[in-house]
């Protein structure tokens, strides 16, 4: 019998209509990195919320060092030395780093804050773990990676010994991910115990000692990472075999669909232009990938391309028609489909039903309206058709409020809408962000299918693996410029990384003659 620092035994947690955790057992050893793997909606976050005191389980018990404990709220968890980095950071933006760290456990005399001692402690901790945090910087002024370090410091400041990380890498750049995994390893070596929620298999292989897999709220098993491999883990997670390589024939590029010339876009944050003099073509029947580290102008470029924002200079031609100044709808009608980066902000109206979201681009067409009155029957039929063809799963079918759907199915709904409408070019921006392997596989298949159907696809991605596997041609964007064009068949991740970080660039060549 081993000694576990935390045991969660037979945990069952129900929400109205769904059993989020069904008799789940998780044992955490002292000093290990323990990964918790599962698809979206598998119950990982719920389980961790139970451990952190945000939810109370209906059945089951939690033991710390063999003693049964009750955790009714985060304060109880904190008193037991359990800390958590939430997926959506719990930081007050207008406060300083220091204020966020001490919030809730403020050192004080008679209610008056005593910040100096706390500052000393924070600086010491930051130096000890190499977090390079400035205690007096405002949260809103620092990067997402730094904000996450503030969350980590919050736990360290409270001297927690059990650290929960809820999908910590989803928001980070590859470089930051590497650093974070290093930091986590360091904690474990020091005797702290880490629970690491993720659905990225590479990260588990890199850093975890053991891995517990959940599927649809049920416990599947716990494995030693050294004795397993990605294939086995993914089979446990999804319940079937997943192919990691994307199956596709060589591309057969035809005529130019999209032609971008000297596009320059102003930045919202600083005086310089966010996108500078970008020129390239996308042909029918190829997937062109715009790669780069987040924040190098991709978002601004896509906003200008899709008409959400104006460009300062340059022109965009779609199927021979100049759409540089066209409205979003004109672009849509001219054959541009767009899977937006932020599906909640630009992709869906979250409080509308699924069927209403399905016709967002088309409700005004005679098919769906007559003299300003919507044809609800036609909309319902159309939505039902799409739901079936694209396997969009939801609680109540066409009348489900989209907010209540899982991220993967929300994305499927957008893809269904954008692919089914008339289009020659599909702009897909980080289409797999935050999704699990099953959904990723599905989306990659759809992109390749579009290509094979003779459409042009422009994929904007931050994930190196996706860039390498899916695209036929890679354009690397760095500080608002295209710094290189690569062929995924002849390049490798290392070379791509060098371009993305600005360490390498080839002279900007005319890309018209590519393919």
């Amino acid at each position, binding site marked *: 019998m081993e000694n576990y620092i935390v045991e969660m035994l037979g945990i069952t947690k129900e929400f109205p209509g769904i059993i989020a955790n069904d008799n789940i057992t998780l044992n955490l050893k002292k000093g290990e990195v323990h990964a918790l793997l599962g698809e979206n909606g598998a119950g990982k976050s719920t389980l961790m919320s139970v451990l952190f005191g*945000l939810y109370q389980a209906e059945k089951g018990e939690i033991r710390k060092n063999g003693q049964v404990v009750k955790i009714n709220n*985060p304060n109880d968890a904190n008193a037991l030395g359990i800390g958590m980095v939430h997926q959506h950071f719990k930081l*007050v933006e*207008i*406060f300083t780093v220091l*204020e966020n760290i001490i*919030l*809730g456990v*403020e050192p*004080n005399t008679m209610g008056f804050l005593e910040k100096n001692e706390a500052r000393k402690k924070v600086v010491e901790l930051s130096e000890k773990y190499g977090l390079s945090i400035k205690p007096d910087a405002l949260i809103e002024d620092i990067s997402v990676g730094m904000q996450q370090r503030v969350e980590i410091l919050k736990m360290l400041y409270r001297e927690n010994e059990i650290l929960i990380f809820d999908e910590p890498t989803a928001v980070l750049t590859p470089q930051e991910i590497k650093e974070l995994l290093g930091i986590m390893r360091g904690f474990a070596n020091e005797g702290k115990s880490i629970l690491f929620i993720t659905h990225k298999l590479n990260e588990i292989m890199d850093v975890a000692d053991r891995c517990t897999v959940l599927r649809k709220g049920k416990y599947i098993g716990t494995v030693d990472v050294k004795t397993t491999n990605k294939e086995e883990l993914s089979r446990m997670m999804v319940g079937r075999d997943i192919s990691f390589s994307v199956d596709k024939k060589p591309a057969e590029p035809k005529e130019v669909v999209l032609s971008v010339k000297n596009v320059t876009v102003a930045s919202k944050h600083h005086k310089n232009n966010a996108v500078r003099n970008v020129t390239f073509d996308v042909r029918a029947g190829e997937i062109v990938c715009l790669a780069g580290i987040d924040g190098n102008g991709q978002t601004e470029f896509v906003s200008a391309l899709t008409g959400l924002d104006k460009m300062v200079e340059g022109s965009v031609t779609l199927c021979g028609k100049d759409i540089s100044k066209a409205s979003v709808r004109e672009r849509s009608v001219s054959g541009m489909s767009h899977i937006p980066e932020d599906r909640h902000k630009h992709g869906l109206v979250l409080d509308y039903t699924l069927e209403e979201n399905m016709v967002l681009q088309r409700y005004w067409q005679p098919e769906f309206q007559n003299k300003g009155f919507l044809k609800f029957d036609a909309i319902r039929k159309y939505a039902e058709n799409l739901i079936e063809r694209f396997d969009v799963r939801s609680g109540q079918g066409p009348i489900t409020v989209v907010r209540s759907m899982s991220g993967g199915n929300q994305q499927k709904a957008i893809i269904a809408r954008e692919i089914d409408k008339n289009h020659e070019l599909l702009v897909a921006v980080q289409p797999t962000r935050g999704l699990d392997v099953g959904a990723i596989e599905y989306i990659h298949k759809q992109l390749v299918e579009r290509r094979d159907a003779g459409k042009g696809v422009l994929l904007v991605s931050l994930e190196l693996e996706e860039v390498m596997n899916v695209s036929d041609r890679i354009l690397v964007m760095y500080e608002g410029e295209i710094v290189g064009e690569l062929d995924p068949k002849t390049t490798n991740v290392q070379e791509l990384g060098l371009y993305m970080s600005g360490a390498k660039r080839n002279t900007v060549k005319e890309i018209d003659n590519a393919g």
Partner: protein
Amino acid sequence: MSTFYYLIQNMLPVAIPLLLVALGGMFSERSGVVNIALEGIMLFGAFFGALFVYTFQGVDMNPQVLLLLGMLIAAVSGWIYSLLLSFAAVTMKADQTITGVSLNMMIPAAILLFSKMFFNSDGITTTKNFYIREVPVLSNIPILGEMFFQRTYLTVMIGFVLLIISIIIFYKTRFGLRLRACGEHPQAADSVGINVYFMRYAGVSLSGILGGIGGFFYSVGVLDGNVSGHTGVAGFGFLALAVMIFGQWKPGKIFFAALFFAFLRTLAYSVSLIPFLDGLGIDQTYYKMLPYVATMVVLAFTSKKSRAPKAEGIPYDKSQR
């Protein structure tokens, strides 16, 4: 120069109610509750303060002591009235704007009804005079003495003290830090064990206390201790909201915003004393519009930059993360 002193002396009793009520609004909104009800809270406090003064004005007592007691009554009544907003907005998670509006509509009508029933008038008229010709010793300080300690009211001095206390509570205490966290990111506050509901009750309660006091001070410093159900506090509660926004929800800036509006109002009422303005021959009524027109103009220009507390107006629901 005497015109200058005159303007300052007349501006401060107007500025202080605006300042206090705006500070109250700040405490409420920075805790996450929109407080449209300030106008009603002011009037409620003013009414009970004046009722207290009316009841005890016959008793032989130093008028300043009576004022202090009246202030306490106004604070308590403002606080009680604000509990209605807390209960609706925090406990029952009602829409904060609608709750505030209804609280505003109730009070003037209630005062009219009450006053008709008991005084056969539209409000309460008191006879006590709280005016201070000069404060002993302090009024002899050169310049400052004449600005702050002559021909004034006790309300001005209390107002400055409350401003300083507010700043300290807001920025220097654990309570202030937690309050501000609740208005920005209540989930974050909750996750570190802060009781968001309690903090929001506290924020709204402070606005009730300051609003009640502000209302009473308005009645003392502007209306000679009277309250009417018809004119109420002349939109000062809403003006205080504008002051709060113009002051960016920060106590120091709110102070200057309150001075700005009070200055315009005083100027409007002192046109005949200023030869240049008097010479223009514009009807006085137009000048009296100044603070209100300025409100619109200032808000139109500053609202783009202004940054309201992020979570204000959104009832906190523990289960939504």
